[in-house]
């Protein structure tokens, strides 16, 4: 909606300001891409240059054997993908129970979930780590994924959506003898595709990008995800800038492409949470 009229001069001024802001926002991305395409010897030069004099894909080739990059990549896919899938299933189970079923203790349980939503992860990270340690789940996919298998936020979000679905369909199905499981899987879920997609995008991105959780659950290099693996690689070998930047570009690529092709889901998914990762 156009809220205010503005004259030509103001428009041009505003446009210029927005162009400058955009350059600043994009600069780190452009810099990482350019650096990753330089030969290592050209990265540290004086005067420094943004654009490579000679483009080479050397860094993109060496990264795979310089560090266990493929392993990081697969770990991140398993972790983010697995958590997204299990969270969608379990969140929608609980959301359905809270939205549609009547049972004793409903309010108490809902309050319990509300409490878990308010407690920041940092408050429980030490006891959770010690628990995983006792279970011998450090450096395992189970340790990475099971504590994240459901999310209070997802339950809230889906419950809200489910409550907006008209009941008439379910009532009719029920009269025809359908059971609760049938209604959940054949009516509620298919009607909730947009909400599920938004939630999937949110969960996947949040876990793909997450740092502190994989940092404490994994200690061996082979179990690292991309953010932890690359950050700790930087701490150890700061010299190989081009390789590190190639890793950064590759690590950011999947989420960036997904964002550019499904912006609506991203913006909605993130704005709805009110929680930043």
């Amino acid at each position, binding site marked *: 909606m156009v809220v205010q009229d503005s004259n030509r001069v103001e428009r041009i001024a505003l446009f210029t300001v927005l162009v400058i802001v955009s350059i600043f926002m994009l600069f780190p991305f452009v810099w990482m891409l350019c650096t990753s395409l330089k030969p290592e010897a050209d990265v540290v030069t004086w005067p420094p240059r943004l654009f490579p004099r000679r483009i080479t894909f050397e860094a993109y080739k060496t990264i795979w054997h310089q560090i266990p990059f493929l392993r990081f990549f697969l770990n991140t896919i398993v972790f983010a993908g697995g958590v997204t899938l299990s969270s969608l299933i379990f969140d929608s189970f609980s959301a359905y129970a809270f939205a549609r079923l009547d049972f004793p203790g409903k309010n108490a349980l809902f309050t319990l979930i509300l409490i878990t939503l308010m407690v920041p992860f940092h408050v429980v990270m030490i006891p959770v780590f010690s628990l995983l340690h006792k279970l011998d789940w450090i450096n395992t996919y189970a340790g990475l994924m099971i504590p994240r298998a459901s999310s209070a936020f997802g339950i809230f979000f889906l419950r809200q959506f489910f409550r907006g679905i008209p009941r008439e369909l379910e009532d009719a199905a029920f009269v025809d003898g359908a059971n609760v499981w049938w209604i959940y899987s054949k009516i509620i879920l298919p009607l909730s595709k947009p909400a599920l997609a938004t939630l999937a995008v949110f969960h996947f991105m949040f876990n793909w990008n997450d740092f502190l959780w994989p940092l404490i659950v994994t200690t061996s290099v082979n179990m690292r995800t991309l953010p932890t693996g690359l950050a700790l690689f930087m701490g150890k070998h700061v010299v190989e*800038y081009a390789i590190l930047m190639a890793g950064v570009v590759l690590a950011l690529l999947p989420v960036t492409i997904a964002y550019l092709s499904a912006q609506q889901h991203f913006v909605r998914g993130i704005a709805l949470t009110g929680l930043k990762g």
Partner: protein
Amino acid sequence: MFIGKIRRKRQPIARYNQQIAYLFLFPSLAVFIVFIIYPIGFSLWSTFTNWNLIQSAKYVGWANYIRLCNDERFWNAVYNTIVYTIGVVPVGTALSLLLAVALNQNIKGTKFFRTVIFLPVVASTAIIAIVWTFLFDPQIGLFGYYLSKIGITMGAWLREPDRAMLAIIIVSIWKNVGFNMVIFLAGLQGIPYSLYEAARVDGANRLQMFRYITLPQLRPTTVFVVVMSVLSSFQVFDQIYVMTRGGPLYRTETLVQYIYHHGFTTFQMSYGATVAMFLLVVILALTILQLRLFDRPVD
């Protein structure tokens, strides 16, 4: 009297639903109880013990809390967290509001600008912090070089005690401005157009409209953005861990850094948990304040 209150009582679907509800809830509840509720209780209990990696925990009364009160490094972390919050929240909120208002005009390229400004939000904070670490390095990053061209010398900010926090604040604002902007844009869409039309009939100029219509109408949105930003600022970790590890001279060590330090470096778990309890109290107080200010129904 409740005679007028008609509540359509739904016929419960069937009695066996009640048990099946627990089946539906079981996986989520199991995860929450084992990995959130129980750890909260354990955490609270452990703050009254000397729990660490080596010894079995012994009751020590309020010793951890007394230590907290006298711990200069803890108060330094509290101070740094507040400095960070004061650095990030007002500037970040104002910038995102201005950008939202700018993008709410009918300007060419609005969609492009919105996409670009939101782009850092979807990037991993830890990964993008690697890039910023290099950008702030005068040897490789170009900022120092560009600034030196216009006569400003920029040192290695991340290694300067007085500048490191500023660098981290800049990165955080850059990272999150798009997030808040999107929330403000949603708020702007909700302002009735008729208000502006009426104001125009009364001869108000655009600045007056912004001051007397846009700002007051956006009040709930602004409160939301400010509280959310404060909450997330108190939990900042990733970019600090990657860029400075809390240094130089502990000048960027924040609360979560300090919890991490005790939980995973010195392994004084019970003391780390005590610092975490402090964070929990602050976060809960802010959350309750937000619910009050916002008057948002929980439903």
